[in-house]
């Protein structure tokens, strides 16, 4: 990454601006950007959680999903659902994902950050169930509670093929501290245990990734990169057929055998 961890990553902002021709406006919280745009022929709302150095909650200044972000995402999506209750074709919602984590802090726990993130999860899930195609575009980190709240309820998950794009339950540095291992030891373990890995190739083997998009630069995309990504987003949106509202397709991954077996056996025993 070119950007230091303290000030937060700029990737999300750059891709959001590129995809929306800088048509974003501030969402229900200063750290949120929302735009309504046409992406390669598809009517889309684009949502971003971005670093906000002036965030009144100091533990959520580097792009983390905190109290304001969770409820804010929920409100932004709720108003999209509300505005389109009568629409025949529901506009898509595109989550641009570059979230280092959820916010870690005392105020956050005291004021119910879990409930705030639940609001965001609920809003994305309700939008999906209402027929809005939901597509997540991972351009940087997609970590833990941050990703659950912003992106993981999508019908389709796309990612830039870049080593700065990582999906995990806990950031590598924090995971190393908590498990009393070095980051190198975590990498070693990850090379044998696919769900432990941070890289996208292993993540794709779990079945949750729908497309890996190669770009010349994930940090400063050129026009061709942007066009390619727009094309992939539009393709994903048009691939989501009416009634295709579940997350079932994620079960097809080569490294998700147990997830399928559990469901098959439970189904067989359900009426037994």
């Amino acid at each position, binding site marked *: 990454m070119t950007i230091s961890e303290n000030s937060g990553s700029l990737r999300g902002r750059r891709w959001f601006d590129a995809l929306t021709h800088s048509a974003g406006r501030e969402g229900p919280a200063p750290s949120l950007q929302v735009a309504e745009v046409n992406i390669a022929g598809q009517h889309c709302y684009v949502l971003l959680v971005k670093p906000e150095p002036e965030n009144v909650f100091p533990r959520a200044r580097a792009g983390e999903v905190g109290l304001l972000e969770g*409820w804010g995402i929920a409100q932004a999506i709720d108003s999209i659902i509300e505005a389109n209750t009568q629409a025949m074709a529901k506009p898509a919602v595109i989550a641009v994902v570059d979230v280092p984590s959820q916010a870690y802090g*005392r*105020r956050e726990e005291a004021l119910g950050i879990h409930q705030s993130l639940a609001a965001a*999860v609920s809003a994305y899930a309700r939008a999906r169930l209402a027929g809005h195609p939901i597509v997540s575009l991972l351009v940087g980190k997609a970590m833990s509670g941050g990703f659950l709240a912003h992106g993981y309820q999508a019908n389709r998950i796309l990612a830039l093929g870049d080593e700065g794009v990582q999906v995990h*339950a806990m950031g590598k540095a924090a995971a190393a501290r908590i*498990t009393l291992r070095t980051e190198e030891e975590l990498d070693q373990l990850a090379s044998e*245990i696919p769900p432990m890995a941070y890289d996208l190739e292993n993540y794709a083997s779990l079945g949750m990734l729908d497309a890996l998009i190669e770009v010349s630069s994930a940090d400063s995309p050129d026009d061709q990169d942007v066009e390619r990504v727009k094309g992939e987003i539009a393709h994903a949106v048009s691939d989501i057929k009416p009634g295709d509202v579940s*997350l079932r397709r994620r079960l097809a991954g080569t490294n998700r055998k147990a997830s399928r*077996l559990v469901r098959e056996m439970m189904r067989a025993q359900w009426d037994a």
Partner: protein
Amino acid sequence: MSSSQSKGFVDLSARKRVEILLDRGSMHELLSPFDKVTSPWLEKQGIVPQFDDGVVVAKGTIGAKSTVIAAIEGSFQGGSLGEVGGAKIAGLLELALEENKKGNPTAAVLLLESGGVRLQEANLGLGAIAEIQAGIVELRTYQPVVGVITGPVGCFGGMSIAAGLCSYLIMTREGRLGLNGPQVIEQEAGIDEYDSRNRDLIWGLTGGTQRFATGLADVLVDDDVDAMCKAVQGCLAKGVPAHHRSDEILGSLENLLKVDTSKQITADVAYQILTGVAKNDDK
């Protein structure tokens, strides 16, 4: 129903909790330990897997109504969710959903003693939790999904978000509910932000009493089997709420935008912010 002698709920195993909450004789466990579907990932990391992967799922009846119930065993790997345990809960919610769509009303009760994602199965735990959350949001449009947090582990990580999605949440004083565990916060934000050994601070902010007082839980119940059975039945009897807590967006956001973050927060200040009512500090 259980016998009427007073008995604690918190000390019971996950399987016993399920048996006691369901109508007597109605428990039909799915994927029991005899099926021996264990975690495919733990042994490679030197951890002995458990035959039920620390999650008990069953269907049965509560008050003669069809209900599915899942219980996480807090004593196995801290109630953490891996691939198998996560798939059991998600799969259970998916089967209940199908029943509802077929016209057979089926509610759900989730006993959430969980540290969140099992780090040894990281991305499969996280992915499963996303599917559990999707399952709750869809199922709760048909029938109530009741969450229960009793302790001793408490409910953290992605499963605390799942708790926030439930139609109703029941807690005991021994239960805790929070997104991040105290040690992780201390590690990431420093001891001045959160002292993980300060019991009073942590229980004051995240314990069942405070969560109930501030509206983040619906029922506070004694650690007693009969009281718990009554509380669960009471929530199920209320049916689907007109508004789920997770969707009460406007007031929540307005409140938080006004918070004075120039100083740290106490349980009383949190109470005031979340309820709009001042609380006198009479300690």
